[in-house]
């Protein structure tokens, strides 16, 4: 059994691919095709590239319906379904709120009520009209934007792993920035699956949990590393789109699911939801394993299903 490793810088992160098989030339060819697809998706989905389909939507959809490709339309429908499943905690229209809180290319600032209300008025998937007949996207108001950053990596991993399978790859692990992962089969001589550690929010050098992935995707969202203080309270860089306020609850949310896109959306959603709502949301999903961690005075309180903490 031979291994081939490939890497790609895309979507503001590093994707790494590890594959096992008998023919390294074929493995590399398959891996290159998969990574090319991720690069292609970056061009299609980027919020920042003015040529991207997403940028065209953001530029024109408040003026007129914008026709989009079938794949992007399907992703937007998935994003809407994710919003509904997470009771509004996951929302791709959150950009104006992120900007008003100074979370885009900055450390964070407390907005005025007026600024916050203006941002809230242009946030919400209910303001995005998706029409299947013409495959068009239209915004109900100017100022609305969509940003697929929270599920773009997951979607790219889902598409890339599909191509790897089509090329005959039977054992592979693909991750984007270590936070979104897609697993195909198992590594050699580890039939229980690919081992993946979930870092402890108090000490990222330790693992809070380890799970095994086999033909499954995984995503972890966390608030550590990015935070700002206001009047003595620390706030993370995660906004609850329903309230427009930074989240003060979960420090960590991890989800394993058959779809990498859903993993990304659910882990973002679970980070925002309170423990009871998070559990009820997770319970509605088929074949999902999840873990959330909430900061307490004496440590982290974990809630989970199908994932055991160390």
């Amino acid at each position, binding site marked *: 059994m031979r291994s081939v490793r490939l890497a790609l810088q895309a979507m503001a992160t590093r994707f790494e691919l590890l594959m096992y098989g008998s023919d390294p*030339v*074929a*493995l*590399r*060819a*398959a891996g*290159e*095709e998969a990574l*090319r697809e991720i690069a292609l998706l970056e061009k*299609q989905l980027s919020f920042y*590239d*003015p*040529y991207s389909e997403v*940028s*065209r939507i953001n*530029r024109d959809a408040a003026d007129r319906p914008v*026709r*989009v*490709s*079938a*794949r992007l339309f*399907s992703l937007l429908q998935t994003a809407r379904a994710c919003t509904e499943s997470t009771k509004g905690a996951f929302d791709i229209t959150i950009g104006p709120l992120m900007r008003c809180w100074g979370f885009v290319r900055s450390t964070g600032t407390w907005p005025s009520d007026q600024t916050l209300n203006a941002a809230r008025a242009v946030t919400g998937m209910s303001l995005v009209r998706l029409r299947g007949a013409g495959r068009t996207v239209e915004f109900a108001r100017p100022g609305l934007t969509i940003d697929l950053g929270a599920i773009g990596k997951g979607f790219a991993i889902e598409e890339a792993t599909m191509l790897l399978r*089509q*090329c*005959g790859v039977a054992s592979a692990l693909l991750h984007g920035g270590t936070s979104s992962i897609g697993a195909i089969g198992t590594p050699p001589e580890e039939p229980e699956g690919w081992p993946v550690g979930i870092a402890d929010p108090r000490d990222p050098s330790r693992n809070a949990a380890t799970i095994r992935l086999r033909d499954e995707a995984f995503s972890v969202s966390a608030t550590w590393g990015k935070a700002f203080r206001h009047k003595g309270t620390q706030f993370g860089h995660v906004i609850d789109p329903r309230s427009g306020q930074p989240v003060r609850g979960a420090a960590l949310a991890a989800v394993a699911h058959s779809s990498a896109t859903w993993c990304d959306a659910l882990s973002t959603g679970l980070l925002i939801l309170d423990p009871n709502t998070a559990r009820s949301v997770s319970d509605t999903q088929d074949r999902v394993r999840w873990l959330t961690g909430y900061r307490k005075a004496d440590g982290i309180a974990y809630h989970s299903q199908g994932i055991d903490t160390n």
Partner: protein
Amino acid sequence: MGGLKVSRRNFLMGGAMISGAGLVRAANIKQRPWPGNRDDVNCAIIGYGPQGRALASTLARVPGARLAAICDTYDPMLLRARRDVPEASRHTDYREVLDNPEIKAVLIATPTHLHKDLAIDALEAGKNVYCEAPMASSIEDAQALARAARDAPNQIFQVGQIYRSNPQHRSVFQFMRSGAIGKPAMGRGQWHSKESWRRTSPNADRIRALNWRLDPEVSLGLIGESCLLQMDVAFWVLGELPSAVHGFGQIMAWPDGREVPDTVQAVLQFPSGLHMLFDATLASSFDEAYEVYFGTDSTIIFRDRGKAWMFKEVDAPMLGWEVYARRDRFYKETGIALLANATQLDAQNQDPTEDDPNVETPLWYAMQEFMDNHAFGPYPPAADWARGLEATAIAVAANRAITQRTHINIDPAWYSLD
């Protein structure tokens, strides 16, 4: 084609022309509406690999185009077609597409060596044809296809030498032709990528077909498959075609049994005396792709979809307008941005060195030209059969020079028709 004539007089005229235009302005930069009295054009794509998919996603945004059918002989590609364009019919036999009278335009994105038969059949079926570049893998095939296109003057035949349709390139072209470069001395172009060029499939029979670029019997190698569009720009801006080529090719990065070199150099020799080096490699992605033209007054570099910068010699005459132009640092050099709509963007407080959000991709403009030709033509497109034949014949010669590591004189008869 006439050579690039540079004199003090037309240099100054060129400078005045550019100054009067307030830097350059692309004539074609905005979307034109599709004529209201025209039905959308039903299009079919034959070949749904990466380029076929790029055509499909572009056509979806071009006014007047309706992608009605997709043809490919490989099931996984048709599965992708179903996901990407569910409303388009799917076919494994291209004859079904050609026999459909509703299909008016056929876009051919198959492996290069299959272009000729498909395109001639499509022309004979009365279709308008967009054929990816290179338009064939041999001079004989290119001539046969060019002849068929020439003999069908009431049908559109456009080759995928897309920069010919790109307003960004057209605007920078004016700088070159204005003489701002001084006396041209030499040129250099590169296409660099880190990839194996291999494709794979669980189906063993399919692997050989997928790897046509590595088949020395049919592949035009890196110089033909990757550099042709850049060479075509060189022929266009220099205003002449090479009379000879000297080539080198090596396998440096991927010694996996392949015969097609993964690293090549070709020196094109032009009648004016100018030489231009093209190098391409699959070993390194460093600095990706660009073309640079060195002259006695300045050096101009083209990169990133038609962006260009000019680096002036200290003793070069003042052009006037460059006082106001945006400058960008490139290590120790300072480049003057030569950008379509630069003044307009400045007025809108947008950075001209960033991508202009109003600009489409070169492929989009090529598709727009193809669709416009259905509404207002037929007229010869910017990349017509003659430009396709020229570029293909020269690419064939360059690839032969590379694989044989030799010098080849280019016979103009190779890109001429009886």
